[in-house]
């Protein structure tokens, strides 16, 4: 972000850049609400181009060195840990929570709590599980990594894949839901 100040609880390593074009530059920290310190750690030599850091009050995102993300959406209500030299393509989403309850009855109560008449009503608990993306992973455009997933080192997540289960190291996954294609 040119000439902009980072939130105080963001640690940005040396030679790392957070950039965006006229459409995406304002979205990086628009939904960054972490009260943890640090709430976001970015290592050295990273390029974060048009990335959205949507981080809840009790959540943290950690990113290693030399990562290159383009227009990725990172949504955390708990914890997302990303290793070094990870590439994330355009419009991919990494999300570590459901944000609404799965069961029908509490979800109905949650709809009321979220509504304009629900001011002050407690939200219902929902599932949150940390996401871990290990070193040298490649995540293609439009891919989605959901809660609780660990993507093993050097794995390839093909474009458009929806990943709901762990991805073994060195494997290649494809499809919705994502299936392991082959050990590369």
């Amino acid at each position, binding site marked *: 972000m040119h000439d902009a100040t980072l939130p105080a609880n963001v640690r940005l390593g040396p030679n790392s850049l957070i950039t965006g074009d006229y459409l995406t530059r304002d979205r990086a920290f628009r939904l960054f609400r972490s009260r943890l310190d640090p709430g976001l750690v970015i290592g050295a030599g990273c390029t974060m181009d048009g990335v959205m850091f949507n981080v809840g009050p009790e959540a943290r995102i950690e990113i290693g060195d030399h990562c290159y993300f383009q227009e990725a959406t990172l949504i955390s209500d708990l914890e997302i840990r990303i290793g070094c030299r990870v590439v994330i393509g355009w419009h991919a989403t990494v999300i570590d929570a459901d944000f609404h309850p799965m069961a029908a009855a509490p*979800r109905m109560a949650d709809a009321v709590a979220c509504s304009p008449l629900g001011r002050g009503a407690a939200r219902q608990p929902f599932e949150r599980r940390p996401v871990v993306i290990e070193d040298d992973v490649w995540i293609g455009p439009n891919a989605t990594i959901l809660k609780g997933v660990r993507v093993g080192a050097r794995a390839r997540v093909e474009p458009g894949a929806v990943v709901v289960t762990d991805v073994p190291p060195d494997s290649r996954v494809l499809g*919705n839901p994502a299936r392991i294609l082959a050990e590369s």
Partner: protein
Amino acid sequence: MDEARRLRPDWHPGTIPENVVSDPSAYLGTSYSFIRFRSEEPVGLRIGRAASLCDLTILDVGPRGRVVIGDYALVNGAMIICDSEVTIGDYTLIGWDVVLMDTYRVPFDVALRRRALEHAALERPRRLAADVPSHPIRIARNVWIGFEACVLPGVRIGEGAVVAARSVVTEDVPPGAVVAGNPARVVRYQAPA
């Protein structure tokens, strides 16, 4: 411009169409949602009590289109393409970048599609106004549709069902079902509320 039909605040300098009936407790993010709203029905959009229509929701509604959004429903940035009827039940949650479409807008027949496209070039504003069938989408109450999912024409989704993120729903979803994938398949059933 009719000042009474403006939202305040609103980053877009538009108004809410006359045939939008909204409960006073409902939340509308922006008049930009109506840039492609051209329903000529007496009530083109009905928004229930304490329902939310968040920013970046787009209502692309044709002249005969009717959209109903139930009480306490949350539409968090969806694209609703409607030439007949899209009904969203009470307490239903709809995630960002979801597409609900009751019509494909263009004919599948290549010759007819070519004619429709050539005709569109003469329209001002440019608009695909082909005479193609539309099939209502009916989403029951307490349904949850995850982000970036797509619901195709004619689909009915039963009470309490869950559509996982990024699913493409091509056929009806029974009440209580959890569906996922492209095309969406039933993963399991849940107890009703």
